[in-house]
């Protein structure tokens, strides 16, 4: 990517390069706009007064006249439910991301070791699970009946803890590291675990940044496991809480109960939007920190090798 830029700035653009650039800027520009407009709509709707929303619907343009912080104020007036959902989500995301990156990199490293004769057999043992699976029903019964996931925080962490894809990304990345690192450390008497923790991990920053982002996104955005296993309102994750708020009738009941405000005065339409902002915000802010590692860390390789 960068090479291209350096090359091209030396000389004047030829006609065809110019046309590719114009086409690129137009098409990419349009697509990028389409990607961002819905976020803009949600944000301005969350700052619009309820009366305006009911009268005019969700706005296309922001207006000072109808500006209102009511929905955010109400969310913060009795923030217990939101704070609890934040707490659950942040805790599950932090623990889950750590465990998930640890498992993916450790497994990926072992399978990337060219001196380990069984690496292909094991790789296929993992990979096979993506080709065939028992489906939802046996999985659900296992989790509920035998592993006791109902209203158990473990039920939010374990299902997303190991991803074969992340492991394959780790394996591809680590196969690209020079084998001499492992070999010379072995001669110096270091064991495999020490080599992994002290030498390989520090060399794998782009990989770890990428995998952490994937894992954090999976945990932060999880509503599915919460829907399957959690019935206790105190353990809801943010996304599941939002899902319930979006179903209007349900939302009114929750808000009225938690804040003691009479039903008709609840700004339900703007609350739907402010809750969306509240549930999405933090994870989007993570992106700039990992962006520079992204292209390097994301090499998709084959299972064999």
């Amino acid at each position: 990517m960068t090479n291209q830029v350096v090359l091209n700035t030396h000389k004047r653009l030829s006609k065809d390069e110019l046309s590719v650039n114009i086409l690129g800027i137009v098409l990419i520009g349009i697509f990028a706009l389409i990607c961002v407009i819905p976020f803009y709509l949600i944000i301005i709707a969350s700052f619009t007064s309820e009366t305006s929303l009911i009268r005019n619907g969700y706005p296309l343009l922001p207006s000072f006249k109808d500006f209102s912080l009511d929905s955010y104020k109400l969310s913060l007036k009795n923030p217990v439910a939101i704070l609890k959902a934040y707490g659950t989500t942040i805790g599950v995301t932090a623990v889950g991301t750590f465990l998930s990156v640890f498992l993916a990199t450790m497994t990926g490293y072992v399978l990337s070791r060219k001196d380990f004769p069984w690496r292909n057999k094991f790789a296929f043992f993992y990979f096979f699970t993506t080709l065939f699976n028992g489906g939802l029903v046996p999985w659900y019964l296992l989790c509920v009946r035998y592993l006791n996931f109902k209203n158990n925080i473990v039920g939010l962490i374990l299902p997303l803890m190991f991803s074969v894809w992340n492991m394959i990304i780790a394996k591809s990345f680590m196969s690209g590291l020079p084998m001499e690192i492992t070999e010379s450390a072995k001669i110096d008497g270091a064991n495999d675990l020490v080599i992994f923790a002290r030498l390989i991990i520090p060399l794998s920053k782009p990989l770890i940044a990428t995998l952490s982002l994937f894992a954090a996104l999976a945990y932060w955005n999880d509503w599915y496991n919460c829907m399957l296993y959690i019935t206790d309102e105190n353990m809801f994750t943010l996304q599941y809480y939002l899902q319930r708020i979006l179903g209007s009738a349900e939302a009114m009941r929750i808000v009225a109960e938690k804040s003691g405000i009479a039903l008709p005065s609840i700004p339900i339409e703007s609350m739907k939007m402010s809750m969306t902002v509240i549930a999405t915000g933090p994870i989007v802010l993570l992106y700039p920190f990992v962006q520079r590692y992204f292209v390097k860390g994301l090499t998709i390789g084959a299972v064999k090798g």
Partner: protein
Amino acid sequence: MEKTRTKTPFLKVLRRHWLLLLMLLPSLIYVIIFSYVPMTGIILAFKKYQYAGGIYFSPWNGLNNFKALLISGKLGMVTRNTLLYNIAFITLGVLFEMGSAILLNEIISKFFKKFTQSLMFLPYFISWVVAGAIMYNIFNYEKGVFNHVITALGGKAFDLYNTPSAWIIVIIFLKIWKQTGYGSVVYLAAITGLDQEMFEAASIDGASAWQKIRYLTIPSLMPTMMILVLLGIGNIFRGDFGLFYQTVRSSALLQPTTDVIDTYVFRLLIDNGDIGVSAAASLYQSVLCFVTIMISNALVKKANPDYALY
């Protein structure tokens, strides 16, 4: 697959690499519990599930679950929907992701490139729940922005939630919207890894920008594309549950165009509590997926072994 030069005896490997094996142990236990044990649970498809008997000790039921599944008459419809949506996702996905990666690579302005790439990545960061909120904001009949604009322009308000056919476009659009930013980075990573001298040599020989894209960039992206397409084909009978569940919100009216195998299995299990029949539907789906990926990988392997997945 095996490349062992001299056959290494079992015990010798065990003695030399016991620590590596120990490092594999946690994830091995994980896949055994969460993937291999549930695989044995497919026998439920042939059982009459009883709570006391659990997965393994409930009485056998022959093919009755499958019969019930066929009688329901929905299997054909959900299979067709799943298949057609995935074909659209795969083909349009390749087009949009590869296309935007190539264009991004050609764009000279570094700022524009970085900025638009970040914007394109935004949809990938949100959950399907948030996507559902966006759908509500835009397409709600009375309050949605879409109808706002349509009526302001003198058109007639459009009720998406009563128009099953329109969902085909909406669902495909949503999927492409959410996936393109991520997918284009995968292709962009592949482009960055290409030999730059090849492009310089082509320029010296007088190749135009379009010719370089056509004869150098696109062919070099084929291995990446094949991996992604094969992965897509392996899941061609699996619906993206979140996408359908959170946006359609279990509306019976919309089922003819929006019900996929996964939402159907989920309804059978959670809403109806019909464990035997949903297990049968699940098994049907798993077998379809397995057969498709086996055949397509074998075909690709025969044509070009480098492109095969395994």
